[in-house]
């Protein structure tokens, strides 16, 4: 089962497969725009405008924060929740199909969190990072790792999901950027600490939980080929 999950995960990166998935995925343009915005943020955080001089260590630290997030966004696009049509025609009982769909999703989240943890470890090496900031960064990465592509078979749910997704991405990238700036000493930690904590508890957590409910609905809907959500 594990070997199968790994090969499934890797195969999604193949060019032909990406082309097949992107061809039927309307959310790719949304995510491309998000990437462009993120590169803007990255370049702003790493310039002298904010009073910090760039060094290789700090650039590596910045990459350690943002590359896992970019990988998260890319990976969630090429690993849709709903399996290909032929898998609904293969001999599987409901339990086996549930195991396949949920297993594939959780494995993808696991791999993305592994890269996020690797990023945080690197961050510890290159900049001075405290545990609370590390935990906040990892929570942001977790929120991004559960993102799923928009499925146009359930348009009502998608409309809501678009807003939640956009909000999650923007907040995650902004707060991670601020955590990075705190780590490199550009911002006085004391001033920002409580704001970031408040944003995490009052804004990010409720939105992530709400998005989690949407993902749960999509996973349940994916158990049947016919989407019950559209009726």
């Amino acid at each position, binding site marked *: 089962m594990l070997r199968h999950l790994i090969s499934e995960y890797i195969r999604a990166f193949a060019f032909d497969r990406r*082309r097949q998935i992107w061809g039927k995925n309307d959310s790719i343009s949304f995510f491309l725009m998000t990437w462009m915005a993120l590169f803007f943020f990255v370049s702003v955080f790493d310039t002298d405008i904010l009073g910090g001089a760039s060094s290789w260590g700090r650039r590596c630290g910045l990459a350690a924060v943002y590359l896992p997030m970019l990988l998260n966004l890319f990976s969630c696009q090429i690993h849709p929740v709903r399996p*290909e049509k*032929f898998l*609904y025609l293969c*001999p599987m009982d409901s339990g086996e199909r549930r195991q396949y769909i949920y297993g594939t999703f959780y494995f993808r989240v696991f791999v993305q969190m592994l890269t996020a943890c690797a990023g945080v470890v690197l961050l510890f090496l290159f900049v001075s990072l405290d545990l609370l900031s590390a935990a906040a960064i990892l929570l942001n990465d977790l929120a991004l790792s559960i993102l799923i592509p928009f499925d146009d078979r359930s348009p009502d749910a998608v409309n809501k999901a678009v807003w939640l997704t956009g909000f999650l991405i923007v907040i995650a990238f902004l707060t991670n950027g601020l955590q990075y700036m705190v780590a490199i000493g550009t911002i006085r930690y004391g001033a920002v600490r409580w704001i970031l904590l408040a944003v995490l508890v009052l804004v990010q957590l409720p939105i992530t939980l709400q998005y989690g409910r949407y993902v749960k609905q999509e996973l349940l809907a994916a158990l*049947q080929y*016919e989407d019950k959500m559209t009726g």
Partner: protein
Amino acid sequence: MIESREVSKKLGKFILKNSSFTLPDGYICGLAGPNGAGKTTLLHLLLGLYQPDAGSIQVDGMSYEDKEKQIHDRTGVVLTEELFEPALTCMQNSAYYGRYFSHYSREQMAHYLTLFHLDHHAKFGRLSKGEKLKCQFAFALSHDAKLLILDEPTANFDPHFREQFFHLLQEFIADGKKSVILATHLTEDLDRIADYLVYLEQGSQIFAGDMESFRESYRIVAGEAYQIKLLPKEKILCMEEKSYGARALVAHSRLNRYAPALSVTYPTIEEFMYFYSKRNNG
């Protein structure tokens, strides 16, 4: 045996109404109808991809609610969509999906790929449309399926392979224990090969039964219009008048009295489809 009992399904604005038919083992059933008739919807219901809003579908006495795995294990499928992974080769695809099927045979798959002149190691995504369908057909034959469900495969086959395809279908049902359901617009194929016919139009089932009954139920009558009109009005399903004469699709019964000058022939499925669509479209 496949049994559909009063199956109805609503999809958006389209409604498939009360489809009922029984296909015994050892026969080929043609599924015909114009575009939008509901052929693909019915196939999706027979494959368990859709659940009927009313009625029931049974395959060898089993229903999808409790025996989905067993039914799918013995069903081979070729659909108009590309079902295989484009990044994998034909053999890799068959190995990937074949592990779900209890009777899958790698050797059989290799045999059919060779027979169909397909490169075993070509990536599925790089094949032509016809080659992709051949690859899917090879897979459908390689796991000892008891039921083959084929949705419009022949339109993309070259003439040589079409002959081979029909020969293989007849070989498939030769033991009397297997069945084929073939949906196609190319009705001359069904005239040639089908034992049963299900004809749909705008979501309604117009005919379901063996080909013999179909041919006995209708006639194409050609000749002078006034002579055709001598037949009972309710029997004339649709008439087409041209300057050189008239033709009509007629519901046949032994009580019909055809004027000697009229030409009376069995309808082909194409003629039936033509006249019935004309009748519905006015």
